[in-house]
């Protein structure tokens, strides 16, 4: 009797233990989480911007309980990206410029997301040219667009007024840019016009914009057989114009080695009358440089009156580490869909996103180029209209002018090397009164040709 009781007790204990074990195994199986690291904001962002991003992460994790998101501050720069790529320390989800994604994908340095991306309900609606920026030569989709921009002329309305200029009438020709810059410098002592001059490809990037606006091109063809044309006549005109503004007009201030962040800070601090940067840079001016919105003005780049003149367009893509496993890839595409793409195509998500941005005192309605089509872009803007907090009236010259301009893609072959090569001539004319423009561009052209031919 006693032994029967003991046996029954043991059986109960063992059964209970087995049940607990089984339930824990089953619960572990159902709640297995996938952790991905994602790029968040650039270092130095305001606490409000960081809080806004964290709110987005919380909302995503609530909607996807099996995915854990680890935000990592990130700012794309050529040197740090190359180092992180080689060291394998990039986050699971990261951003790359239009210029690099295809080459990285062809080299097997980005994950193949074709299967996951084709599942997205709006996949077929993408602008084919934009999607092509994230598609390899073999047709693999390795990145989705985050945003596209056209280069634009940003101007300080307060300095315009102080110089006796109408802040609602920004310059529409390069001759006007020069004369306005002279007036601003004379009346305020500030740099009338400033340009990125840093030896980190940014000087070459903005100089290429200037040349495009006059109708020139930096190369013809694609791949290693492309021909460098850095010393074209429009480039000579553009560099000579910079030299004149620097040394004859003396309207470019005293700092000629500003990079992307430096010039944004200088502009936000009210020290620059006009400068060229991407049309979407207002976000950075708010989140990292605390700009006073009342001083901000945005206009299209003045274009020369010829058929080849156009505005340089570019953009940013979102990609995934090549070593991400299937679960991480799926989670990464879910995050890309949630954070980057849905707000452009889904009304509820667009409104939710706009509300979060407004709550975090971040800009809503920053001008950009459509990733799908103009109609979708306009529609998405109508959804978020009540939440738009950027000074739209001050951006009107750009928003009305940009869709009449020809948007031209960045040089296709060895883009960053071409920009790097052009950094030198720009720096030379800004720091040497006797710089020989033609000679500088000829030298740059032969250097760039060697880089293109070597596929670097």
């Amino acid at each position: 009797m006693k032994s029967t009781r003991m046996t029954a007790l043991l059986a109960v204990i063992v059964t209970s233990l087995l049940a607990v074990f089984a339930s824990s195994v089953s619960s572990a199986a159902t709640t297995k989480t996938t952790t991905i690291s994602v790029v968040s904001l650039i270092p130095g962002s305001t606490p409000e911007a960081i809080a806004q991003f964290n709110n987005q992460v919380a909302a995503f994790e609530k909607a996807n309980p099996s995915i854990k998101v680890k935000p990592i501050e990130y700012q794309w720069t050529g040197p740090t990206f190359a180092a992180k790529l080689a060291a394998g320390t990039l986050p699971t989800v990261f951003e790359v410029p239009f210029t690099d994604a295809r080459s990285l994908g062809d080299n097997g340095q980005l994950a193949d997301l074709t299967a996951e991306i084709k599942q997205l309900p709006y996949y077929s609606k993408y602008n084919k040219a934009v999607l092509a920026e994230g598609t390899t030569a073999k047709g693999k989709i390795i990145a989705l667009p985050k945003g596209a921009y056209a280069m634009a002329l940003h101007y300080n309305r307060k300095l315009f007024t102080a110089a006796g200029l109408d802040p609602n009438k920004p310059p529409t020709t390069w001759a006007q840019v020069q004369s306005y810059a002279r007036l601003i410098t004379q009346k305020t002592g500030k740099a009338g016009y400033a340009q990125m001059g840093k030896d980190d490809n940014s000087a070459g990037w903005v100089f290429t914009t200037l040349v495009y606006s006059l109708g020139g091109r930096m190369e013809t063809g694609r791949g290693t057989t492309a021909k460098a044309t850095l010393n074209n006549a429009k480039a000579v005109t553009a560099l000579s114009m910079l030299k004149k503004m620097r040394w004859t007009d003396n309207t470019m201030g005293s700092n000629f080695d500003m990079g992307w962040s430096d010039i944004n800070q200088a502009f936000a601090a009210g020290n620059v009358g006009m400068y060229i940067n991407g049309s979407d840079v207002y976000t950075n001016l708010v989140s990292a440089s605390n700009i006073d919105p009342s001083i901000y003005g945005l206009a299209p780049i003045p274009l020369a009156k010829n058929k080849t003149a156009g505005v340089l367009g570019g953009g940013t893509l979102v990609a995934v580490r090549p070593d991400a496993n299937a679960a991480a890839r799926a989670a990464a595409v879910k995050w890309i869909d949630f954070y980057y793409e849905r707000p452009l195509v889904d009304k509820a998500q667009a409104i939710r996103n706009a509300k979060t941005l407004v709550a975090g005192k971040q800009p809503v309605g920053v001008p950009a180029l459509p990733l799908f089509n103009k109609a979708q872009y306009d529609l998405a803007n109508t959804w978020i209209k009540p939440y738009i907090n950027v000074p739209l009236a001050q951006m009107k010259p750009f928003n009305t002018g940009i869709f009449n301009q020809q948007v031209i893609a960045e040089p296709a072959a060895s883009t960053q090397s071409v920009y790097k090569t052009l950094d030198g001539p720009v720096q030379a004319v800004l720091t040497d009164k006797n710089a020989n423009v033609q000679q500088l561009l000829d030298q740059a052209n032969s250097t760039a040709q060697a880089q293109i031919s070597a596929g670097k």
Partner: protein
Amino acid sequence: MATVDPIDVHWTDSEPAVLSGREYRRARRTPLTWVRGGGLATLLFLLPMLFVFGAFSWYPIVRTVIMSVQHTNLVSPATWVGLDNFRAVLNDPVLPKAVENTAEFAGLALIFGYPVPLVAAVLMSEARRFRGVYSALAYLPVVIPPVVAVLLWKTFYDASPTGVFNTILGWVHLGPYPWLQSQQTALPSLVLESTWANAGGTVIIYLAALTGVNRELYEAASVDGASLWRKVWHITIPQLRGVLLLTMILQIIGTAQVFLEPYLFTSGGPANATVTVLLMIYNYAFGNSLGGDYGSATALSLMLAAFLALFSLLYLRLTRSWSSK
């Protein structure tokens, strides 16, 4: 006939050993005696150092040599390219400018930066009071993190009339000067900051060396009516010649590898006016966002290392007689 091991004979024999001491020790060394003699403990103590040196010094050197004959971006598989990387580096149009700038930096640092710590150390050693305060002040720049120091000097070098240096010079109706914004003044500006940042360490070395100089020599010179300058020229410098020669070669090697100042101040600009050999190596490795050209970077590193090794050998040979006097 059975042979007899002489060692055994001598172990058991009370007569003086026939074998020399060296032969005797060699014959007795077995793994067991090595362990008993503390060999294992020595090896155990040595292992961490061997590991650290192996992992962080020798392995990278071996990898550098291998990578210099490869085409690799550390992501795609490497391919062997022989001496192509060396040819590519030697044909790079930026190389002559980088070598020229590096030599100019080293030369300017030698002319202006080398005597400053010596003069400061001599003057400080002559000070009767607050010598510790002077030493601390001289060493302070070394304590400041280099990035902070460069950011500080960047504001000093602001090219606008309201920049710190330009404001000060404006009081005496000089300037404003472009400092880092001019191809002519950028490199000397870097040398100036570098001298300020690095002099403190050398001052401390000189001060320590000066304490070893026999004070009686100075007293005798004073009795003979020697001026401070003659005491320095005839006593201090000859007495410090060993240290002086050492700091000179260390400075030349250090300045030949200058990277921090051009990287943080100017990124090699304007228009390559401050690009140096080490900055070129960095640009090869990290300048292209599509993946570095680590083959060219390591090839140039090896060329620089070989040059510095040869230069050091030559220097030591030429100065051997002077330093050993």
